[in-house]
């Protein structure tokens, strides 16, 4: 059993323009990258559950040279709305840390 936190040495999030969030997961080994970067647990359903993202607007880009995967999703509400809690989305990665990857 492994969580995102167990197999990544760096996980970070940031807005990519006012309408998108992008999360970078840097794995702690090539083995873990190969095993987990395309895991279903990091798929659109998880982003729908955790962030209210539209699953059709979740995009995953594995970057093998860096043993990382970038996952981008459309914000459920645009930046700076009436109930904004994280304007730059720099805290959004935290919700991913405990996601269980061995389904």
């Amino acid at each position, binding site marked *: 059993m492994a969580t995102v936190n167990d197999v990544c040495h760096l996980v970070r999030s*940031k*807005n*990519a*323009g*006012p*309408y*998108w969030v*992008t999360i*970078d997961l840097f794995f702690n080994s090539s083995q873990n990258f190969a095993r987990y970067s395309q895991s279903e647990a990091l798929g659109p359903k998880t982003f729908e559950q955790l962030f209210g993202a*539209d699953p059709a*607007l979740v*995009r995953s*880009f594995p*970057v093998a*040279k*860096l043993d*990382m995967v*970038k996952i*981008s999703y*459309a*914000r459920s509400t*645009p*930046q*700076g*709305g*009436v*109930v904004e*809690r*994280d*304007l*730059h989305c720099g*805290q959004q990665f*935290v*919700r991913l840390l405990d996601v269980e990857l061995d389904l």
Partner: protein
Amino acid sequence: MAADDFESIVVLVPTGSLGAGAREDEIRYGIAQGAHVIATDAGSTDSGAAYLALGISKNNKGSVKRDLTVLMKAASAADIPIVVGTSGQAGGDMNVDWTRDIVIEIAGELGIRPKIALLYSELSKETVKAKNAEGRIRPLAPMGALDDATVDDCDHIVAALGPEPYIAALKAGADIILGGRTTDTAVLACYPLWKGAGLGASWHAGKIAECGAQCTVKTTDGAGVLLRIGRDAFEVEPLSTVNSCTPHSVSAHMLYENSNPFLLVEPGGVLDVTNADYQQVDPRVVRVTGSVWEPKPYTMKLEGASSGQFQTIMLVGIQDPVVLHNIDAFHDRMLGALNERVRKTIGAAAGDFNISLRLYGWNAVSGEKVAAETPPPREVGVLFVATAATQEMATQIAKACNPYFFHMHMPEHREMPSYGFAFTPADIERGPVYEFRLNHVVECDEPMEFVRTVWIDLALEEEA
């Protein structure tokens, strides 16, 4: 650097954002390395729509003036141009003019007479609506088709410039170019593109250096980088001689604030770095090859900002264990009580209002339920945010809520509690909610279609 006979173009990128702190020793080093141009970005949409909606800068005047003074002194002595993109944070006309006034002030103080080009890219609502009616504005996900009402809501609309207006101004002899909203990459790529450096290399170099020293190993140990751009390759070197770039630090920057790590859509094309190769050629320097530029029909990205409803806020700190031991129930009870209070005391006049309570120290950032076994925090800060159609109404709501926000008891309380306000008066008028309203591109007949170039030649003005 280059194997062919093309002499590399040297671009000095002093900082990731004008006003963030250009360093004189770094500028000296870059000039000594033969910089042909100083190029810097001065803004971003990153910090929200207020700066475009209001036409104001995020960085204060003092810090922008300080950086510009350092750059103008060095560029004037070395006789090389300065190009600034997205002036004044948002790149609207007001943001450009704010920066222009600082440059003129500095020129007077330094006793120099630069020829200044101002590149405005703000669009009128009529222009945007007309283009939309022609079917030449396309939405980008997750947005839908643009309608006139959305255009009318915007306070300011800008189109992100490509390198062409900068190249035109450089050709016409500009010493300083202050651009409106511009893609981060275009402002760094314009000079090498003008001089015939490789398209893929120029654009990719621009992307890598857009945040200054962020593509280096010690991102806090230095402000800028130097780019040497050839036909098929470019090199990145930190301006701080104790800092270095590595293939990892450079390639990882393609990930930054970018939803796709391989493709970057720009005016007139797409940068594709899928097959880029990053090599350490010196302990401090990385060479990049394999960047590809694929030309596309010319489009410019539109950004529009509006001001909407108004907010008034209040803040209390709570250490009371009765609250902290049942904090979610406290939140729900408080929110219910406050909404009820507004309905009873203000009624229909409150209009379409919203009250939100954020429990800092508990779940303010996510707004999600906290796991059941989580122990209570030592204290929480409760931020009250009332949103309503006018500032007056938002404040009236806050004032109506104040006694409950201050004193609301839980069933376990033996007497009326008083929570810890941080300020008097308790309510703070925060102003409007600013939002970006556009995520669209406009198809252009040619790259200069939406650009207005204004010249200020201080040498001529002095003669006149």
